[in-house]
């Protein structure tokens, strides 16, 4: 793909961080020849509506979509005066005013396993005059806004400079499964991108660090080092472990483990704090013999104030209290202002101990049985303790690397890189380090050193652009391949017993760490597919089974070791065959250059040369 990119005449490498709460774009010109030193990536200030009728260029584009009401008039942009929807800051602000018309967290819906992610489901609970859109379309609209903004600001009508013609690196959470990646690329192709590569966000953060350090990074990370990337953003928490290894005398980087998809981030912390402050104000009012109910204006004000107070108290270890003032109703500001203060202890308790408690390395996140109705909303993390999720990751991958000590109970990072807005707080960084170092010392390992990063908000986009340069042969690359092994479920041919599920065998179709640009024919697994009918197969993934080769048949596994994903389906066209015929096929898996998993069904007796059919990663509801 990089060669194609060079051929297609891309002038820039562009890194896009399509985040749950914010989207950002960084770019760097592609050097004309090998000898030229590449320029470091810079951020695009993205023109967007920030209020009704007002355009401003900002580095962050809030990932929000607003369906304008007829009373709003057009949501005019410099390049489209008649638009009926808005993306960005104005959409975010309208989310507080008119929540029913705004889509937030589309990305979290994109990886929601039990909804049809190509159907119009957003925003949930929208009023009837809205034609809802799919999570894929919402992501597409955010990318489309970037395309239009870039073409307006950078390309200015020059076709060869259009964003869709550039070499695009789009980031996804490391924890995104094959289907969520596929859907992300669908959104990107819909936006018109031609030269596209996916990159895991924690890796992007690490590339940003590498790019900032220049060659000096080799002094801080040496062969044998294990780098833990802790990325806590607005909506999600993402972990990755990258090992520096000696490959024939050269230092190479390998991504060895990624965490689960955890829907938990800074927004949850702000919401909790705002709720706490509201309760406190109500209690204070009651103590003074008044009743208090906050209106909409006051809630907006409260959210801002609580976030501000949090940033102050978590950012400045000396600050004891932060004042909170909430604006009065309507245009009356002075008389109606409510006051309270937030103390260090409260923030410590709610955020530091609530989300980052000191836990043992053997602690694991609590799992509640899901209520039947959870699929109506987003599957938020059931345990808010980020440190427990971290302990689970390190514990699960204890044997991912050859360990010096035999009795290691967890994977031992030697370096930590923080990323994401939440980790800007020194208190929270210290807390994570404190927990990690305690676990390591119990295990007889040295504490992990923190790698000082740059801008934690923009690192992912900048790192993605830096990666775009690295894959053109300029700088070190992280190897990783797929973060999971993938399996197709084959039901055993046993007589049906009522109430007992037939035993299922997992056939490995793509091994853990399968590299981009490689293919594998799956031996052994012969599947029967009915012509002219959609045939579903159960589909599984494992982030811990590293050794299963393609074609391995797994009959038993420990709970949690292999997880069921949304099913896959084959739809064989009837051409050349009789409808209803059963055609024996084998599977072939490919990890594309883009970074998605492609499964194909190859008939054992082909009717024409190279006959094969694509196996779709179904993204429909599992019902």
């Amino acid at each position, binding site marked *: 793909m990089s060669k194609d990119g060079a051929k297609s005449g891309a002038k820039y490498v562009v890194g896009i961080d399509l985040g749950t709460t914010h989207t950002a774009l960084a770019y760097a010109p592609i050097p004309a020849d090998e000898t030229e030193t590449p320029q470091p990536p810079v951020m695009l200030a993205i023109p967007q*509506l*920030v*209020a*009704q*009728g*007002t*355009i*401003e*260029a900002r580095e962050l584009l809030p990932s929000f979509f607003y369906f304008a009401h007829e009373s709003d008039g057009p949501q*005019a*942009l*410099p390049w489209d*005066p008649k638009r009926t929807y808005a993306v960005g800051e104005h959409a975010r602000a309208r989310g507080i*005013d008119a929540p029913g018309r705004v889509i937030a967290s589309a990305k979290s819906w994109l990886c929601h396993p039990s909804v049809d992610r190509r159907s119009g489901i957003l925003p949930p609970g929208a009023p009837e005059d809205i034609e809802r859109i799919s999570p894929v379309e919402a992501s597409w609209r955010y990318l489309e806004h970037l395309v239009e903004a870039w073409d307006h600001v950078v390309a200015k009508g020059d076709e060869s400079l259009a964003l869709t013609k550039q070499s695009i690196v789009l980031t996804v959470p490391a924890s995104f499964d094959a289907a969520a990646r596929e859907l992300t690329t669908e959104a990107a192709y819909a936006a018109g991108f031609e030269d596209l590569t996916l990159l895991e966000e924690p890796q992007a953060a690490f590339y940003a660090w590498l790019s900032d350090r220049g060659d000096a990074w080799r002094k801080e990370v040496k062969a044998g080092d294990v780098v833990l990337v802790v990325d806590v953003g607005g909506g999600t928490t993402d972990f990755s472990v990258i090992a520096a290894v000696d490959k024939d005398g050269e230092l190479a980087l390998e991504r060895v483990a990624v965490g689960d998809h955890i829907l938990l981030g800074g927004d949850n912390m702000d919401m909790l704090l705002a709720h706490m402050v509201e309760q406190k104000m109500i209690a204070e009012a009651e103590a003074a013999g008044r009743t208090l109910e906050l209106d*909409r204006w006051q809630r907006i*004000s409260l959210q*801002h*104030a609580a976030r*501000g107070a949090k940033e102050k108290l978590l950012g400045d270890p000396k600050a004891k209290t932060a*004042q909170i*003032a*909430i*604006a*009065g109703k309507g*245009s*009356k*500001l*002075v*008389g109606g*202002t*409510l*006051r309270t203060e937030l103390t260090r202890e409260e923030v410590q308790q709610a955020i530091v101990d609530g989300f980052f408690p000191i836990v043992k390395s053997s602690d694991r996140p609590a799992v509640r049985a899901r209520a039947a109705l959870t699929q109506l909303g987003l599957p938020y993390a059931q345990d808010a303790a980020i440190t427990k999720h971290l302990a689970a990751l390190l514990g699960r991958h204890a044997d991912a690397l050859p360990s010096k000590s035999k009795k290691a109970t967890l994977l031992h990072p030697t370096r930590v890189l923080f990323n994401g807005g939440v980790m800007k707080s020194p208190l929270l960084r210290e807390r994570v380090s404190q927990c990690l170092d305690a676990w390591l010392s119990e295990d007889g390992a040295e504490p992990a050193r923190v790698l000082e990063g740059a801008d934690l908000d923009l690192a992912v986009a900048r790192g993605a652009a830096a990666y775009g340069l690295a894959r053109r042969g300029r700088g070190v690359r992280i190897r990783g391949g797929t973060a999971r092994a993938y399996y197709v479920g084959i039901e055993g041919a046993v007589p049906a017993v009522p109430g007992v599920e037939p035993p299922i065998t997992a056939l490995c179709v793509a091994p853990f760490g399968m590299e981009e640009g490689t293919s594998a024919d799956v031996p052994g697994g012969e599947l029967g597919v009915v012509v002219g009918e959609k045939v579903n197969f159960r589909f599984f993934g494992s982030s811990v089974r590293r050794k299963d080769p393609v074609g391995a048949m797994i009959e038993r596994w420990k709970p949690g070791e292999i997880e069921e994903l949304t099913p896959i389906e084959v739809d064989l066209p009837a051409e050349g065959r009789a409808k209803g015929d059963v055609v024996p096929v084998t599977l072939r898996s490919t990890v594309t250059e883009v970074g998605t998993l492609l499964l194909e069904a190859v008939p054992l007796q082909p009717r024409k040369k190279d006959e094969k059919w694509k196996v779709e990663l179904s993204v429909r509801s599992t019902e």
Partner: protein
Amino acid sequence: MVPPVAPLPFTTRLFFAWVCFFRVLFNGLFAAKVYALDSGEAPQLGPKPEPTPPEKKEPTPEKEEAKPRPAPVEKPPPSTDAALQLLALLQREGRFIDFIEEDVSGFSDADIGAAARIVHSGCRKALREHVKLEPVRSEEEGTKVTLDGNAQEVKLTGNVQGKGPYTGTLRHRGWRAVEIKLPVAVEGHDVKIVAQAEVEL
């Protein structure tokens, strides 16, 4: 700083700082008068702010183009639009107009202080995101300085006489708008509506 005669409450100072900011930025005559006041009389500030709020800001910026002082302002759109955009911005982020337009005489300093926090934090955020300000003189206030007396940058006060270079005490470091980037109005957008009325359905 102004040598104190009687210290003003914080809220008045905040309020006055805002009014001055606008008028200094958009009204060269006013800017000159403020310089003349710099040597002294704080009590005069009391009555002045009351009648000054927004109405006056709309017409004044028209004169701005001719003035050499706001040289960093590079954007070409009609100057009243830019002023109104800034006003809308301050209202949106910091409830600026609500605060200035409200009759505060009946409220206690504590009440006004609480509201001032909202205005201060919001307007500060808005201002910092859109105007980059830096002191004209980098020395600490109160230090002895010797200078040639650039009429644009420095105003001499007190016993003003003789020829440069002048030596004196730096009373106010001054402010320079190094960079200003204002929001752009979409065509057809009525910039005179600096805050929409809201009706909840």
